């Protein structure tokens, strides 16, 4: 794998760094961009980002592992994130997670063999009025039940 980021991304990073009086403040936005281009933040991406922002790689590792949205290994094409917080679990969210584990043949945190789906259990997504809810990549889906899950998953290319 090439160590280089695309020139478009490098330009975007330069622009973002200019928003802050200190370069390292751009760390979260830069990690988001790099993850979007490369799929995950492995040790290699950590080193690239550290170099760009003048940080020691361990400072980048600290931030990557502190958050739930930076992936240290590649995900499936569709990242299914089911809320397991209070409102969703009151309305059956946990049963939906059980259902998805059986349907996809994976446990929480795993990716299907064909690389299409990764299943995660997450905390409150901020869409409690649509409980039980989930995100697939960055799209929200609410008022879920088994039939709706089947339809949503079946409709994904």
């Amino acid at each position: 794998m090439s160590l280089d980021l695309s020139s478009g991304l490098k330009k975007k990073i330069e622009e973002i760094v200019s928003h802050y009086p200190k370069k390292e403040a751009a760390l979260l936005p830069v990690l988001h961009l790099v993850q979007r281009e490369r799929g995950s933040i492995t040790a290699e991406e950590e080193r690239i980002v550290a170099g760009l922002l003048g940080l020691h790689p361990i400072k980048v590792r600290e931030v990557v592992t502190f958050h739930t949205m930076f992936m240290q290994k590649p995900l499936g094409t569709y990242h299914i994130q089911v809320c397991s917080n209070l409102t969703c679990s009151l309305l059956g969210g946990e049963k939906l997670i059980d259902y998805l584990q059986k349907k996809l043949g994976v446990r929480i945190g795993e990716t299907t063999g064909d690389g299409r789906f990764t299943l995660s259990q997450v905390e409150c997504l901020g869409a409690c009025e649509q409980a039980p809810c989930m995100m697939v990549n960055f799209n929200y889906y609410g008022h879920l039940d088994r039939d709706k899950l089947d339809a949503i998953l079946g409709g994904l290319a």
Partner: protein
Amino acid sequence: MSPAAEKILTRNFGLESYFKIGVYRKHNGYRAQKKALLEMNPAQVLEEVKKAGLRGRGGAGFPAGLKWSFVPQNVDKPRYLCVNADEGEPGTFKDRYILAHNPHLLLEGIVITAFAVGIHAAYVYIRGEYEAMARRLEGAIAEAYESACLGKNIMASGFDLDVFVHRGAGAYICGEETALLESLEGKRGHPRVKPPFPASVGLFQCPTVINNVETLANIPSIIEHGAQWFLDQGLPRDGGTRMFGVSGAVVRPGIYELPVGTSLKKIIFDHAGGLKPGKTLKAVIPGGLSSPILRADEIDIQMDCDSLAGAGSMLGSAAIIVIDTESSIMDVLKTVAKFYAHESCGQCTPCRVGTTWIHKIIKRMAAGEGEAEDLDAIVRLAFNIKGKTLCPMGDAAAMPIISMVQKFRTELESSLRKM
């Protein structure tokens, strides 16, 4: 409280493309900003907001004007505004609606606030999952720059302000104001020791104002209609409306913008349509997951900061979670304990170790291997967290757990026997 109080924040949510600057302006948008920048001076803006009794909508309920007045004006450093759009308190989803439907109202509030405090750079820290809302806000910011509502020499007033969107990446603690500052600086979100408070030593060691999205979105109406009008919408010491977010076992979950001080019972039964058919109310969490639980017989209460505090709970983010009698408090307790154990940042030992042990014990109880003494153990652990941590997350974890065990002990004990 005026019976026919107006909707301040959600009034135009139904209008098509209201998030576009053209439509927003057609409905009197950016009028308050123009008034503040061209007809008032910063001290007058500050005074008006102080008089309006606007209390923080993020959770702590601190008066916004007072917070601004703590920022020193005589130091030779830039000052910053951080907008807290990290909305992570479980049950809370109001700021998502403002960001999606009314981004220009937020921007207008940001400009007026920055003008009052002498700020020229603002960062909106928005939770990572709200990617669509971040894009919508970025679109609104671009429109505002093009229309001279942001940037250099705003509305030919001579006032400059830049606004940047900064996305978080999934960490509840980053909604705590000093953790948010650390995170914005590119570090792990570990809360800071206070004092010094952010007003004097905040972002990049400079004086900083941190306000919640809904708080800032109220500012334009205060400038447009005056402090007294705003107070008239709510209560004498707690002005305006709140965006009550109702979720759980109700017929119509959603956002209800109502006067501060509206009865909790009315919100649940009149506005949200009451319990779903065949269900009976057991308990309500009135202000986001961290607020102590109320029993069904305790909901005849006014929803304002002081009334909730008087009842031993808190208004918090005004996120109301409704629990029916078919849901077991043991399950609720397990979900609550899991969340705080997962989200403790690990900096303070009482919170890091306490939340983990509470979760382990409750998991064991919920699996049928618990005893009544375990309930005493978790309350003891919770009291060893409360008041013993750098940031309010310790209390946020301890309070709901203590209240659930104290108010539902009989049910919890009987569910232990049943297993």
